[in-house]
């Protein structure tokens, strides 16, 4: 069973097709890179799979079932925006996740918070943007979800913390889950991706295995990206 499958997935905003006829499958045990410039439809695609946007056309299946509110049990999604309630503390964010997500592990959360150099009694309101980015990662990755979707996980993260984040992602990947990462920081991401999906103006243009691309074309993913989006 594919963990995520989209069929002719389209999202229209007024006249603009943010996502156009996307047919994508995400298999378990793999790390996927959804690559493209800003505005190419990466976030919109992920938000549809997460249930935050409804499709204009097409279908989505998660864990073999048509997308519904129940699919959210299996999907851990990190958006680009800050999405915690201002009134909460870091600790309360953890309790919230524990209350609503059966696969949330408070111990992992505590570990990650420590690694990110945050503390449980910090108020969400008073976090800098870098700290908020780290909190998002901690909350998302402390779940034992089947599908992880990370929208620009390295945004707002300083160079030193980047390695910690990439390491957290590598550690999270296992044969029973799949991870979809969107990023325009391709050089930082290259090494950890199994497959790459290039999306240009809402349309999927290339889908392939990263190592195969290197072997067959003698190109890095960065090279390929520059070719496709030049």
């Amino acid at each position, binding site marked *: 069973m594919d963990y995520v499958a989209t069929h002719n997935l389209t999202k229209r*905003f*007024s006249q603009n097709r943010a996502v156009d006829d996307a047919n994508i499958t995400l298999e378990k045990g793999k790390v996927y890179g959804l690559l493209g410039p800003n505005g190419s439809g990466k976030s919109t695609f992920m*938000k549809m799979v*997460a*249930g*935050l*946007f*409804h499709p204009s056309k097409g279908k989505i299946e998660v864990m073999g079932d048509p997308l*519904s*509110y*129940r*699919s*959210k*049990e299996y999907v851990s*999604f990190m*958006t680009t*925006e*800050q*999405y*915690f*309630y*201002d*009134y*909460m503390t870091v600790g*309360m964010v953890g309790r*919230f996740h524990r*209350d*609503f*997500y059966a696969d949330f592990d408070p111990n992992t959360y505590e570990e990650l918070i420590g690694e990110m150099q945050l503390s449980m009694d910090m108020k969400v309101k008073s976090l800098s943007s870098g700290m908020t980015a780290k909190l998002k990662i901690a909350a998302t990755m402390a779940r034992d979800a089947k599908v992880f979707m990370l929208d620009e996980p390295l945004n707002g993260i300083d160079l030193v913390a980047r390695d910690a984040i990439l390491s957290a992602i590598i550690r999270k990947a296992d044969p029973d889950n799949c991870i979809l990462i969107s990023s325009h920081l391709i050089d930082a991401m290259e090494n950890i991706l199994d497959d790459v999906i290039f999306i240009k103006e809402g349309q999927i243009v290339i889908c392939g295995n990263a190592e195969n691309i290197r072997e067959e074309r003698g190109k890095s993913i960065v090279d390929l990206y520059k070719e496709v989006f030049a």
Partner: protein
Amino acid sequence: MGKLMKYELFRRSKLLISILIVLVFMEGAAVYGLYRGGEWLILFFIMLMGMAFAAFLVPLLDAVVNYYSDFKNTHGYMLFLTPQSGYSLIGSKAVFALIELLSALALVAVFYTANFHLAGAFGYTDELALLRTVFQQIPQMLGTSTAGIVSLGVTSGILQFFNTIMLAIFAVTLTKTLLSQKSFNWLIALLMYFALAMGIETVNGLVLTGFGFVTDMISFSQDASAVTLELGDEIKLDIIKYILVSMGLYVIWIGAAFTGSGMLLNKRVDL
């Protein structure tokens, strides 16, 4: 849904404490007005009315504003990413508002009762006696008891409140799911609320007429004995029946708004 309500509470903790403080101050002012007497009684009555008004208005505004903010601001993602059905999300907000209302009403009831006793202590015995008579006679005139009329009134008020909240929530949901406006959504939602409310009142009116409300009112006002109505006479107008019909209608509208909102949230959300 209980978990959702827990976080609705946390979200408003500062607001609720402020409202509590305001109500206590209002009661203080009311007692002062009662104590001073004479022209100061105006303060007393204004505070009493204000309290009751606040008890109904604050939960309503609070529920709608917070709900709207969940759509408008990105913190709404936190809520909408949870594996909760649209019905659960809506239900938690409506039920929480109801609990807020009942708590506020309970507090106001405590204050009213205290004021009643204080009035006795401050020497308003004549006025209290008159009040007591009126409260005993009017229910009898309508064919029921004091307890009956009070519970009917309270239930009716609560249903009306619930109806208004669900309608407002539905208006916001409609605006945020079916219309792809970028700005002034709140204005559209407000207009939509009024349109829906008017539509509902029209339908209510038609239904009540169907039950004979208009004809009864006409014959009642034409009835000679109504002109010389005195305390203690029986009113030949079955008001109770119409209150019950209205309440039934409110239940239907509440159900429709709830179902509509839940369905839209499940299928057509765009954050």
